[in-house]
């Protein structure tokens, strides 16, 4: 079955690629520009990286519920879901803190991002998003610690591109039947010669979601959230802009679905994020300084967790964690010579962490303060300087090479049930990349890249305390950075009728941080009664240690073809293989081969009717690691493959009203993404309407 699916996918893919000989040229429009590769806007075809740009039109047509769901069906991105209120993208075999999330170029990741899958991409409201830019693989020079890739979410700043009314506004409403989910959103915007503004607010709610086949309604999946954002641009003159933005989202009672059965309660309450930025940009247009930008950022994230475990049903634990990060970025672009473009700058982040836990015995009301998930009062600082040159020594060759030096400093100490703990430590390391683009023709680029990067330990790596089913994880302040060397080669083509890319990559990871057997006060178990003997109920000690060595390789194919002015065919295919070299077994949470093929018919008329049929598929993943086998989201047999067909369509009336309707998962397939704790919705009807005021 899997082999048939993959063979069909490859044949269809080749059929789409063959018309590559038809030529055209990439227009300079917003949909063909990417910021996130070199932190300066440039044409997607010119970049040396494997990328994906998801535009506002793509987002509208998908009519997804959340931001992680928009990434499903895209090349090279596999979205793991522990809960219905989460979504952790796996890019190039890496997940969680190895993937760097940006919002308008400002880092969303904090120093407490956990080991494995995390839910934080879902804390960004999809209705605030203008476009999503994804750079797959190491972003070594212009960002720190992105080993798997970068997801940069660009928020709405003003009127949409084709909006004539100014000032104007929109109201949006969405419904989905499987989770009885509703989304309500309203926005106001305007632009003039001196300013541009955007103000938006959203409310989203869903009940427990019904899976396909025999899965039925899944407990612990419903939750609600609200969000708002504000953006102000003041155009000081033709070259200078001052921008202020603020974003906030709060989710309530978001259950961790995979804990249903083992815990009696496991709800994130609240899950809150606030992000503010103040940016000054100047397009000087001098040869020594084409452009510069100064950006201040403030990122505050709060997470509460209410938990009751099955073994202590009378004790309710209240975890409370928050992180506040302040950031500064100064960045410059120069063209000192006709063939050179320099990008250079300075980054600084300083983060402080508060972490606590209170256990309340419900029958008596007695409460007891305990050590939180991380060392309370811990700090984390990162400073980096970087320089990159993109130059063309010959007309047929473009090269970009860069270096980034990162210095990090961890601070904090505690005296708790874990003993005396001193986190103080620091380190620095160099990342570098060399990207080469051979312009075979004006339509075809051949790419060879090499990069070396690393990720330093964060607060979670050095100070986490976690009571798990397989033991108690205790801090290891001595843990060191993980490093990765990667090379990739690829092709990009861009014509009037066909565009696409094909990439092969190979990653070698050293010093991987693995959770394994450890010690606390010289003992391999948690000695509750201090008798020096492991009594019944005293769990083993686990610690994160630099013992891993791994290899990940894969292929990413992405193609789009327009054989007729009304018909667009597009598809993608991704294959990944990961090996844990130390244990000589598959690497954990490696996605199976997956992809999607779509055909979209769209008539250029006043109503702009369109219809799109999408086949989304993934093979079974039976190559599981020892850790995967013990994970209730995977198990020893791995995860079944899936084949899902969705039909979506819509139309627009006088540019004032847009409607989209979807028949999702037409065959009511019971499926979930590998390593997920929740099944995707079964057959459902989705619909959305947008009215421009």
């Amino acid at each position, binding site marked *: 079955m899997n082999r048939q699916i993959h063979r069909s996918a490859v044949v269809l893919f080749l059929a789409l690629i063959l018309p590559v000989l038809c030529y055209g040229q990439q227009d300079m429009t917003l949909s063909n520009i990417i910021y996130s590769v070199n932190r300066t806007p440039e044409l997607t075809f010119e970049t040396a990286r494997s990328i994906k740009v998801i535009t506002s039109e793509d987002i509208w047509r998908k009519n997804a519920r959340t931001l992680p769901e928009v990434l499903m069906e895209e090349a090279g991105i596999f979205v793991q879901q522990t809960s219905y209120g989460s979504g952790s993208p796996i890019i190039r075999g890496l997940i969680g803190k190895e993937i760097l999330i940006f919002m308008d170029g400002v880092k969303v990741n904090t120093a407490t991002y956990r080991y494995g899958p995390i839910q934080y991409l879902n804390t960004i409201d999809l209705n605030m998003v203008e476009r999503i830019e994804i750079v797959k693989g190491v972003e070594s020079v212009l960002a720190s610690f992105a080993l798997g890739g970068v997801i940069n979410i660009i928020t709405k700043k003003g009127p949409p591109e084709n909006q004539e009314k100014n000032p104007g506004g929109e109201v949006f409403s969405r419904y989905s039947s499987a989770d009885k989910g509703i989304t309500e959103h309203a926005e106001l915007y305007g632009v003039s010669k001196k300013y541009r503004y955007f103000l938006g607010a959203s409310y989203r709610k869903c009940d427990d979601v019904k899976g396909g086949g025999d899965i039925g309604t899944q407990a612990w999946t419903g939750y609600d959230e609200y969000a708002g954002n504000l953006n102000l641009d003041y155009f000081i003159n033709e070259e200078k802009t001052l921008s202020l933005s603020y974003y906030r989202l709060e989710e309530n009672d978001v259950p961790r679905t995979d804990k249903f059965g083992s815990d009696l309660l496991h709800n994130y309450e609240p899950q809150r994020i606030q992000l503010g930025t103040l940016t000054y940009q100047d397009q000087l247009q001098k040869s020594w300084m*084409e452009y510069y930008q100064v950006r201040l950022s403030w990122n505050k994230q709060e997470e509460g967790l209410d938990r009751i475990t099955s073994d202590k049903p009378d004790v309710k634990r209240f975890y409370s964690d928050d992180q506040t990060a302040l950031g500064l970025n100064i960045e410059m672009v120069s063209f000192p010579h006709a063939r050179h473009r320099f990008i250079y700058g300075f980054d600084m982040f300083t983060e402080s962490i508060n972490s606590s836990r209170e256990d309340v015995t419900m029958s008596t009301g007695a409460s007891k303060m305990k050590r939180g998930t991380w060392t309370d009062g811990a700090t984390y600082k990162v400073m980096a300087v970087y320089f990159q040159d993109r130059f*063309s020594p010959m007309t047929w060759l473009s090269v970009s090479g860069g270096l980034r030096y990162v210095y990090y400093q961890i601070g904090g100490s505690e005296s708790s049930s874990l003993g005396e703990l001193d986190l103080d430590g620091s380190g620095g390391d160099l990342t570098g990349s060399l990207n080469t683009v051979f312009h075979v023709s004006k339509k075809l680029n051949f790419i060879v890249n090499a990069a070396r990067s690393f990720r330093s330990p964060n607060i979670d790596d050095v100070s986490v305390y976690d009571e798990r089913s397989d033991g108690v994880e205790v801090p290891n302040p001595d843990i060191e950075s993980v490093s990765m060397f990667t090379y990739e080669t690829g092709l990009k083509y861009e014509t009037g009728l066909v565009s696409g890319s094909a990439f092969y990559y190979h990653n070698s990871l050293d010093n991987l941080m693995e959770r394994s057997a450890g010690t606390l006060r010289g003992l391999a178990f948690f000695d509750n009664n201090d008798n020096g003997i492991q009594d019944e109920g005293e769990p083993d000690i686990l610690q994160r240690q630099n013992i891993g060595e791994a290899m990940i390789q894969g292929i990413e194919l992405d193609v789009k073809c327009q054989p007729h002015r009304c018909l667009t065919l597009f598809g993608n295919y991704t294959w990944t293989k990961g090996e844990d070299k130390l244990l000589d077994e598959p690497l954990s949470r490696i996605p199976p081969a997956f992809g999607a093929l779509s055909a979209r018919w769209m008539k250029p008329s006043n109503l702009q009717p369109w219809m799109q049929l999408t086949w989304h598929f993934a093979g079974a993943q039976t190559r599981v690691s020892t850790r995967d086998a013990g994970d209730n989201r995977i198990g020893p047999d791995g995860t079944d493959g899936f084949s899902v067909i969705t039909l979506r369509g819509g139309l627009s009336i006088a540019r004032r009203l847009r409607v989209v309707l979807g028949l999702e998962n037409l065959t009511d397939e019971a499926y979930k993404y590998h390593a997920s704790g929740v099944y995707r919705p079964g057959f459902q009807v989705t619909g959305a309407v947008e009215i421009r005021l």
Partner: protein
Amino acid sequence: MNTQKTLLVFFLLFIFCLPLMAQSGAVKVIVNQGNSVSSLTKKEVSDIFMKKNKDTWQNGSGIIPVDQVFKSKTHEAFCDIILNKSGDAVNSYWCTRIYSGRDTPPVRLSSDKEVLEYVAGNAGAIGYISGSAGTEGFNVKVIQVQ
């Protein structure tokens, strides 16, 4: 550590290798035959093509700049001679303007012939063609750029 050293050597090699100079040939700036303008300064042409505070002719009608495609020899020469910038710098400028929602670039056509036809058909248009291209048979005139 060896990996870092190798990367550093590669990087320095590429930084200091001397790139080829851009090919620069003459270009002619053209306007519609009905336009009364006969000469412009480089700064005025630059402001028009970079859409900087220069959007009307002396008679009050709108200026419509028309560009040539990125990386064509004529475009590179125009950027070099008139705008005093590299084609990459101009491209980067427009990418930034589009991305920040400030402005969109002029229409880009793919040959001298297309530019001649466009300028001939639009009273307010201004474009450029290669120095070797003729204007005979088109309702356009070449203007002096000082």
